[in-house]
């Protein structure tokens, strides 16, 4: 139970930190990192709830985390690509 709380709590804490960071920072890179921190928090929580004591761990959350990571990576890539585009334009001026 304490392990659940510890890992789960840490996940939620990460999520909150990520939201805070997303809201207060202007720079694109920091926002993108903040989103990834949020994501890590959620995945953390998922892994925490997969634990089932003596039983083998629940596979469903693991599958979700994998999928979630894929989605997060592609979203990050798109955000960075668009950010790059904007910066290139700024440089060109």
């Amino acid at each position, binding site marked *: 139970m304490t392990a659940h709380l510890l890992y*789960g709590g840490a996940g*939620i804490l990460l*999520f909150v930190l*990520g*939201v805070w960071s*997303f809201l207060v920072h202007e720079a*694109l890179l920091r*926002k*993108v990192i903040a*989103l990834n921190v*949020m*994501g890590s*928090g*959620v995945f953390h*929580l*998922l892994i925490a*709830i997969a634990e089932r004591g003596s039983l083998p761990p629940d*596979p*469903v*959350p693991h*599958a*979700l985390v994998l*999928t*979630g990571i894929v*989605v997060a990576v*592609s*979203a990050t890539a*798109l*955000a960075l690509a*668009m*950010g790059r*585009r*904007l910066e290139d*334009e700024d440089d060109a001026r």
Partner: protein
Amino acid sequence: MLDSLALAVTVPLLAALLVTALPGRVQTLGVIGAIATALVSLRVTVQVWQHGSLRSDPGGWGAPLGLALQADGLSAALLAMAALVALAISVYATGYFREGERRLHFWPLWFLLWSALNALLLAADLFNLYVTLELLGLTAVALGALTGQREAVAANLRYLLVGLLGSMTYLLGVVLLYAAYGTLDIGLTGAAIRPGPVASAALVLMTGGLALKAAIFPLHFWLPPAHANAPAPVSAVLSALVVKAAFYLILRLWLDVFGAIVTPAAAGLLGLLGAAAVIWGSWRALRAERLKLLAAYSTLAQIGYLCLFFPLLQATPEGPARDDLLAALVLMAISHGFAKAGLFLAAGLVQHSAGHDRIDELGGTAQHLPATTFTIALAGTTLIGLPPSGSFIGKWILMTGAIATGQWWWILVILIGTLLAAAYVFRVLSRAFNEAPTPRRFVTQASTEVPALLLALTSAVVLGLGAQLLWRLMGFGVVA
């Protein structure tokens, strides 16, 4: 027999592959793919019409591991709307993106978006909804930034970041629900849910995250620049379909997952936000200098109307009156989808013809494009909620519900919203009357003008007169 639900997701995916693989035939393949996708989507709707709800487990895994797809009246109605609107947009796009690179980039993204949208409407579990929501968001952002212009990229980057914030928040809610109830299936979660802090936290997180994506006031700030700067067919998709998808999710969750724990105060809050959106959105639309910005703000207001239904649904006991409200909600959403798509397509034509879309300088342009002016007028009729549009029926039932449940203050909001909408629509239409030379013919470019006109006509006439079909599709009562 092929699984029609799975086809509705895979056919557009296949089309996306084809248009990427054979860029030389992109227009032809695009139209064929659009027709095929529309047909498979409509097939689902027809099957729901005949047999009621459908469910399938592709791969045969079943819950909880497999990815189930399901369709009920609500999703079938929106699926049909998406099919028809998207088909019209596809035809329009063949005329709009005549040549150049953008044409090559548009079609693959467009089919990916369509596929994600269909998957979202048909998904039966909460995590799949997350994935489809993200796919929809990513493709929408890419399409929105298609022009490559600075404002478009900046606006859509903001849209992307906000969308990610929203979907992450949604995902956290999903995780909480899974931790508490051990299932992701919508129906099973809804059956298991009990009032408590976890469920409430999940409700707040998921609704809040989706509210960002659905641009519910005051989380709408990203929408007007993103929608106003995209190419016309993309704006149409964003306003008519993408925003609706997020709203559909909120509705789905409140009806099927959180039905047991939603309190009147929560519903009232959503209604209040809706009211603020109606008035603020309409007001900003009235003050907008550009036609596309006007259309984007009007989307805010229209989403607001949809939110007004929540407190009424909450206060109305199960029965025909509640069914009417629900059907009216869907009817308004669909009508707005058709009308707004038509309006954005028309705005694109105006912009094309005039080189700009500043409302105050539109005088002669409106005169050159009679069919397009008509499109704007018909779409405007729907946005105002005048008969015989679908949104007139929707508003009638909305107001009936407000009076019947004693929540008369919403009437005041609708009244103000309607008058403001009339003001902003006729602000545009009055430019059509001037002393410019008479146009020679009604339609100049059929491939773009006719789809837009048909969309607007559907919203303003067909949906109003044929509204009862929606009741039948959603399985409500026997219409005498």
